[in-house]
Every structure is written in C-alpha cells, then in structure tokens.
C-alpha cells in the first residue's frame, strides 16, 4: 500500500536519508526504530510531503506522492501524528477533533466518529470544552491520536508514540493501536522503546545514519544480535 523506494533527502548540504526503501501493507503494523538523529522523523516527513525528496519514489496505492502537497496526501488517506503532537493548543478538545476531520471525505462521518473517540477515550469526553494546551501530556497524546483517527486514514503514521506517557498509558496505547489495526488500518510507528515497538509490530526497520540497516519480521529482529546489543541493551 505504501511503497518508499530508494529515497535520498537532504537538508541543505546535509544528507539525511540515503536510498531508503520501506513498505507498509494493508492491515500491518510496522515499526521504524533507530537512535536519535537517525532520520526517523525525516522519513515520516518525506512521506507526508513536508520535506521534498531528491531521488527515489514514494507511492501510495499506486499513486505517486513525490510532488504532491501535504494536504493532498492527507486527503489520499495518510495521516501523521507528528513529534510534538501537532495539536492546536488554543482550541478546545472538540475543536481539535473537528479539525482532525477537516478533509472532505471525513466530514460526513464527523458526528459518529466524535462519539466513537469519546467512547474510546472517556477522559477526552470529560475535557471536551477545555483548551488542548491545558491537557496533561498523556491526555494530549490521546487527543493527538484521536484527532488522527477522526480523519479515517488508511495509513496512520505515529512519531514517538509513547513519549511522555506513563507505563500504564503506553500499555493502553498499544492496545489501542492493535484495535485500530483490527479495523483494517495500517500503522507505521516510530518508537523509542524498541522492545515494546517490536512486540507490537508485525515487521520492523532499523535506520542508522539515514540508511536502513536491518529489516524483517519483528520476532526475528528481537533475536537479532546487533539489535539486542545496540537497542535493547542485551549482550
């Protein structure tokens, strides 16, 4: 469904991605792991058209994304929960969720989806008229995900899913991601906690210095000696 093929990307003179390829299939959870500065966010931003690639190709369901502006990519069904959550702090919880359903395709189902989100996240229902900026970190993360789900995406990209969340909240998030996958959505997650990311995902990619160095089924990555040593601290 999403095919990233041999992309190069530079910020000025600094090349951040080198021939990166990755695929996400329908109904799949894929984890992207790597150290700080490896290029994970850059790859997600390239997929959503926020930064332009120099070489290679990006396509989604057979349609090329390489020259398409972000808002069209969102219309096409890719939604990204960015690092820093991408909320509108001076707008209420409900308004943030409504903005999640901004694209035409999602507007019809807005009312129903809003109820669904409030079922899924009762705390957001309680805070519905509060400014998003006044929510706790965990509540903001829930709102960020709920806002993404409001757009009925086919592919959800989540950067730093568990940042700022308590262990209990992380568990809940993982349950949630599984649940939305079971509804047929594909998910690409970037996650600091490599162990739980690989436990959750079907497949994983390891990125180092802008290059994909390892990829495969999560189960086999968890047994991989290099990953154990570099990311799991197991020797």
């Amino acid at each position, binding site marked *: 469904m999403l095919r990233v093929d041999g992309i190069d990307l530079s910020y000025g003179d600094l090349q951040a991605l080198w021939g990166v390829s990755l695929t996400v299939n329908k109904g799949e959870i894929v984890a992207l792991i790597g150290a700080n500065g490896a290029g994970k966010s850059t790859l997600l931003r390239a997929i959503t058209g926020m930064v332009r690639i120099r070489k290679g190709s990006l396509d989604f369901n057979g349609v090329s994304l390489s020259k398409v502006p972000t808002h069209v990519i969102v219309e096409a069904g890719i939604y990204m929960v960015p690092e820093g959550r991408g909320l509108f702090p001076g707008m209420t919880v409900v308004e943030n969720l409504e*903005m999640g359903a901004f694209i035409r395709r999602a507007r019809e189902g807005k009312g129903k989806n809003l109820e669904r989100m409030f079922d899924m996240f009762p705390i957001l229902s309680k805070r519905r008229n509060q400014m998003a900026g006044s929510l706790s970190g965990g509540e903001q993360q829930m709102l960020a995900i709920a806002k993404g789900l409001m757009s009925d995406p086919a592919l959800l990209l989540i950067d730093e899913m568990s940042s700022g969340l308590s262990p209990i909240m992380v568990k809940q998030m993982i349950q949630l991601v599984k649940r939305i996958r079971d509804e047929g959505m594909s998910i690409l997650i970037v996650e600091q906690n490599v162990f739980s990311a690989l436990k959750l995902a079907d497949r994983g990619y390891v990125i180092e210095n802008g290059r994909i160095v390892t990829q495969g089924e999560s189960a086999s990555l968890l047994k991989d000696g290099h990953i154990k040593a570099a990311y799991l601290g197991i020797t």
Partner: protein
Amino acid sequence: MLHVYLQVLVYGVYVGSLYGLAAVGLALVFGVMEILQIAHGSVVMLGAYAAFWFFNLYGIDPLLSLPLVAIIFFLVGAFLYRTLFAPTTKLPTEVKVRNSMLLAFGLILVLDNLTTIAWTGNIRTVSTFYQGLSFGFLGIQIPCVGLLSLILAALLIVGLHLFLKKTYLGKSIRATAQSAESASFTGVNIGRTYSIATGIATALGACAGALVLLSSGVDPTIGMDWTLKSLLVAVLAGTGNVGGVFVCGLFFGVLEAIGSIFMGPYKEVIGLVIFLAVLIWRPQGLFSKQR
C-alpha cells in the same frame, strides 16, 4: 456641561467603531500569518474611493454598494497575498515580519501615489439624504450616519467572530494561525487559507473605508493615518481576539474624543501615551490570552 461630554462620547464611539473595524483586518493578517500589512490604511482609502465611484458613476448608495466593495476587495486581498506576500511566509518569523512590512511600505507608496495621479488630490465626498439627519436623545444629538456605522461595523465584527468560531473554514484559519504545520497535517491547504484570510481582512478594511467616506469623505492622504490608528488599536488589543480588537477601537475612539476637549490639536498624543503605557504594562496586548 454633561451634555457636551455625552455628545463627545457619542462621537467617540462612532469614530471608534471605524477604528475597530479597520484594525480587525490588520490584526487578522498579523495573527494568522505574522505579516505586518501596514498598507492596510491605503486599503481603507481605496475602499472609500470604490464606494465614491459607485456613487458618483452609478448612483449606488455607499451602504448598498458595501457588499460589492467587500467582494472586490476580497479578491484584491487574495491577489495581493498571492503576488506579494506569499513568498515571505516561508521565512523565519522575525525576517518575515520585517520583510512583509517593507513590502507593504512599498505598496503604500505605489497605491497612494497612483491614487493621486488617477483621481487627483482633491477631497471627494458623497451626499445622501441621511447624512444630515440626526435625532435627539436625552438632549444629545445622535447622527444617523454614526449610528449606522456603529451598527454595520458591529454586525461585521460579530459575523467575523461567528465565522471564525463556527464554520470549518473559520476554524481552519484559527488552526493555521496557531500552527501552519499542524494544520497542513490535518489536510488544510495553507496557501489557500492565507489567501482567504488576507481577502477577508482586505474586505473589512475596504468596508471601513466606505463608512469613512460617508462621515468625512476621502482623499489620497488618509491612508497613513488609518494605518497608524489600526496599528495602535491592534497592538493595544493583541491579535488573538476579534471582539477585543473592536472594543479597543471603541475605547480608543472615545479616549481621543475626550482628549480633543482638553488637548485640542494634541489629542493624538493621548493615544500614543496610552499605547506606550500598555506596551510597558501588558506587552502581549490587553485582550491577548497567549503569545
């Protein structure tokens, strides 16, 4: 004596409603894109000319041509954004504010001078049956034009407020103001949103101009004064709150009117002194919640 004060108050509220209406446009553009559109006063001036020509050539009353003027200047604003300001939006904030201000300054020179060349420096006025009318109330005279201006300005402001709060397009403008990047992640076309916001701001400025025409006429030099007033009011209020900007405009109008009793020609000083005081005491503006 009380009558004099009340009379001055009435006058102040009337002028202030125009200050508020003009300032809202400037505040909107700055609040949404951090573009300092200091040619906004020239827009007010051109709006007045547009209403004048509709009256002069086609006999359309300025109050009736208001929707036409609004539509024309909406398009003018969107065009100005696309051709002039769009390239600055990608710059970092400080550079953006400075460069947009310089561009707008150039625009002032072009617009004001072209206006003088095309339509001479003469003052242009219209005369309608209601301009002379006024009615007495508790011993003070309320001019008909003043009341109409206040009502129309207030309606436009309430309309803008509801638009920003209730409609998808309005919400997307507010969202874009908070974070253009986050808004584009929800599928908002930022360039289009900026064009629309500039269009609305320009239309509001031109509407203010049409009302100015009714009260005091227009000549090519009034632009700078309206830019200054709009800027003072917008900075006083902060840019986050449409209603706040309008209230500040009223406040400013009243203050200036009262000042004119005591200080005569030096009334302008009052505004500037208050302006400084607010900057020192509440640099984010009187009505701003964040930023």
